[in-house]
């Protein structure tokens, strides 16, 4: 077994992701805008009720929002565009004609596409919302540095797991696309789930007490919410280890079940014809 085909699939999608520079700039502007609006909303809510003991301080909520915005393209919103196109045109049969492990082949491409989209945006937005905002005197609204060195290191590890977890969830959307021969379903299911459950709409720590354990335990929390909590140093019940453990648990579970689902899907394609 050689790694080369998988590295090649990764390299290809990474390149495609980087090719759309205008989209990076446009996305950056949109995310700055959404970030700023969200921040103003938090500021007025927090100032309106200064006595309430919120699970996140205003400063933490702002930092949460900036990181969340900078990682927006890391979310599993739908299938890999290349797989969606291939499903529509029927070129997906060529994927069955390659001497490769289909799961690893698609996963490499998916991970590369997510990272190729997210990494440049994340770095740019972090620079603008962090050091640049402080320099121009908007320090109170800026992205705060990590809680401490350990938080920095662990959140880096955690975001790596988050990217893998997101790619694994996208694999489920890819399989759904291969089954229905259309990418639409994956977006219809994926986008609301990912936006809501990842904490993009409202940070998961700000939900009511009774629902928070469930929100933390579901797989979408592992993409950005857990890495951000570790970065902020806000308590996760059981500590950072629980967060990393949850990520690993979902990564393993979704990979195992996803591979089974893929096996069954390929069998079905083989039985009913693509």
């Amino acid at each position: 077994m050689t790694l080369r085909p998988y590295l090649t699939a990764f390299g290809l999608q990474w390149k495609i992701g980087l090719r759309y520079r205008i989209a990076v700039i446009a996305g950056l502007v949109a995310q700055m805008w959404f970030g700023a609006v969200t921040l103003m909303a938090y500021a007025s809510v927090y100032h309106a009720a200064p006595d309430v003991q919120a699970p996140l301080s205003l400063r933490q909520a702002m930092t949460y929002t900036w990181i969340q915005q900078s990682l927006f393209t890391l979310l599993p919103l739908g299938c890999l565009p290349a797989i969606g196109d291939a499903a529509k045109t029927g070129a997906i049969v060529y994927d069955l004609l390659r001497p490769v492990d289909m799961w690893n082949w698609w996963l490499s491409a998916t991970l590369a596409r997510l990272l190729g989209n997210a990494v440049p945006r994340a770095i740019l937005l972090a620079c603008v919302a962090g050091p640049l905002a402080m320099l121009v005197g908007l320090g109170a609204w800026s992205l705060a540095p990590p809680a401490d060195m350990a938080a920095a290191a662990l959140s880096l590890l955690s975001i790596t797991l988050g990217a893998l977890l997101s790619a694994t969830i996208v694999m489920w959307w890819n399989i759904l696309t291969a089954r229905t021969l259309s990418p639409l379903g994956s977006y219809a299911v994926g986008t609301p789930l990912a936006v809501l459950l990842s904490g993009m709409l409202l940070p998961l720590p700000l939900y009511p007490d009774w629902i928070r354990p469930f929100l933390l335990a579901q797989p979408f929390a592992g993409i950005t919410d857990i890495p951000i909590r570790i970065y902020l140093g806000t308590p996760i019940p059981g500590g950072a280890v629980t967060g990393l453990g949850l990520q690993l648990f979902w990564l393993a579970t979704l990979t195992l079940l996803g591979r089974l689902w893929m096996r069954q899907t390929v069998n079905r394609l083989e039985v009913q014809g693509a």
Partner: protein
Amino acid sequence: MQPPFPAPDAITVKNLRKTYTVREGGSWRGKTREIVALDGISFSVPKGQIAGFIGPNGAGKSTAIKILSGILRPTSGEVQVNGLVPWTNRVAHVARIGVVFGQRTQLWWDLSVGEGLALLRDIYSVEPERFARNRARLADALDLGGIMDQSVRQLSLGQRMRAEIAASLIHDPDILILDEPTIGLDAPSKLAVRAFVHELCQDRGTTVLLTTHDMHDIEALAERVIVIGHGRILADSPFEDLRMTTLSERILELDFHGTPPELALPAGAVETARAPHSLTITFDPRQIPAPALVAHVGHLSGLDDLRISRPSIDEIITRFYADHAA
């Protein structure tokens, strides 16, 4: 995995059956119905042969091609390609075949042809020297020099098809499966594709299985035609044999500078059309050989010119399908 039977041929197919289950009515309680796509076909293709695989739409050609490619599982029957069972040894099997689906693209729209080939090199783990050799050879034979650096989305259909064929051969497959490789191509591109496939077979001994609706592809390339209809093999023979058994008649056209005379024709020949200055006679060469018929009409007064022709391959196939209600 041990092959279930020894197979010296490149492709061996025995009693291959494939049925699809379709849901009718589309509602929750829709009844299901079985459609028989392949109803027990058997054939084999020796190494280095070009076999044409033809049949009307819906005859089962694509189903058979998909099974041989390893992307479809039959309901029953035995298949060996290169000594492997396609659907049980998928990865090993697909590494040794090349496939072109004429209506789909295997190249990457965002990449240039050269980048696409390099990507396939990595997918098939082709060693660098072998890749360089194959790339140069294919670029030369398929005239890809000028388009190596163009992105696939900018290619014309003819250029793209040549690139597709190169893509299917970069890993030196023993067997090449071409599913309608000339569909939509202009005449020069068709001729280029045919010439290339012919050479490939001659020089490298590649076994080729070809499906097409263009009967000239078959005439130019295939040593043998397998005609499939209603999921069964209707004929499996050299093309000349099919011609003899289906539509052996020939056509004699006579031009006159006056009104054509009334003729008493020998048995086996009939007048089929009459125009102010010409006559068309259809005859069966087994009953009346062409020289005898020409001798019979050669002395007619006012005869300017005569031509003998055979029915086109399209007419033969149309007749064959009609005879078999395919």
